[in-house]
């Protein structure tokens, strides 16, 4: 049980999730600062990450490890990440036209693929299937946590008057830095 708790804490509060989520956060918020768009696009990322991560772990256990084909992992991870991102995009297309329009306009598909690949690469596949599943779930919880914290912080920081070159993109990175510090401190306390 303690082992699972350690995995959960590391996955949620480690710097990995902040950096791989950071790729998404900066972009997901860029097109339109809508709370629901943030939730929907995060769910797309979570669904595609979990599905592709689990498939990679199954392939890793039954194919790559058995036949010594470890070097094919990146190729398969990228292929599955793109396919799963496309699947979530198709689901979104049928679910909500408005969200799908925002999703397309903010170039979320390639960025979502990059987040999927990044998360798949940081997962440790040398453990059991259950642990990998748990780690993936915790990564997704961490991702959602970062998104929500970022959304709340960025909204406030953006309304403050700042120099023109420091607006938008640099401000997003500064917000991510603050989110990172908050998560690090919380992780230390826990």
């Amino acid at each position, binding site marked *: 049980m303690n082992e699972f708790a350690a995995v959960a804490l590391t996955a949620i509060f480690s710097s*990995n999730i902040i950096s791989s989520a950071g*790729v998404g956060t900066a972009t997901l918020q*860029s097109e339109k600062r809508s709370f629901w768009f943030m939730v929907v696009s995060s769910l797309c990322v979570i669904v595609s990450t979990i599905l592709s991560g689990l498939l990679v772990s199954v392939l890793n256990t039954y194919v790559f490890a058995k036949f010594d084909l470890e070097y094919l992992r*990146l190729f398969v991870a990228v292929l599955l990440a*793109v396919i799963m991102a496309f699947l979530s995009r198709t689901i979104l297309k049928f679910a909500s036209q408005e969200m799908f329009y925002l999703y397309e306009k903010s170039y979320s598909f390639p960025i979502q*693929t990059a987040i999927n690949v990044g998360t798949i690469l940081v997962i440790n596949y040398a453990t059991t299937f259950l642990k990998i599943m748990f780690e993936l779930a915790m990564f997704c919880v961490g991702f959602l946590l970062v998104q929500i914290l970022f959304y709340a912080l960025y909204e406030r920081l953006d309304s403050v008057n700042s120099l023109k070159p420091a607006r938008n993109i640099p401000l997003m990175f500064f917000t991510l*830095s603050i989110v990172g510090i908050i998560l*690090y401190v919380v992780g230390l306390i826990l």
Partner: protein
Amino acid sequence: MEKNSPVNSVYLIALAVSSILLVVNSLYQALIYCAVVVAVFLVSVCVVSMIEKVADKHVRFLMFALVSAALITIIKIVFGYINVKEIVLAGESIEFACLPCLLLAIVPIYFENNMSVKEFFVDSLLMSMGLVLMLALYGAIIEILGHGTIANVQIFKGFAGVEFFTKAYGAFLVIGILTILFNIVRRTYLKKTRRYNMLVEKYKVQIREIRDTQLRVRAGERRDYNE
């Protein structure tokens, strides 16, 4: 380019750098990643450009991702045969070089539809140069502030670096500051280009006016001569 759009060169370069911030913590590593990312990006874009007319943009992106993954796998295998400490260290997590490639591919695949070959080449080259510059600066700053060295050489005696800059939040701060600097350069360049274009337009109008006046004068002279 839109104000807040992801298709902004500085934005994409900053995103690309942030995607590998955990695996780059020295100048040498930054330079190795620069070389790998630029080579993989340019080769993959060239391969994908062959199917530009026949495939949808998402299919092209899938193709780009697969080609870049294959190239990085080959590079990882090659790195395994090189016995240089920095390359061995970088080779352990070279798979992450796929992420900046995927992010940089947004411009040639999703955005630039009506570009000439020259414009496409210049744009890709500028993006690559921007990435190299930002990643190299990032690697150098992180190495100096986080470890107190530059290219594995101690700078100040007794200064072993600040732990803050070796973590993700410190790295985000450094990338944010670098993005501000790049934004200033980009804005200045765009202003100068706009001013240059305006001047060119102004001179074109003036030359046209002078030519019209000369033609009118000549026509008048001819009329006087005929009369």
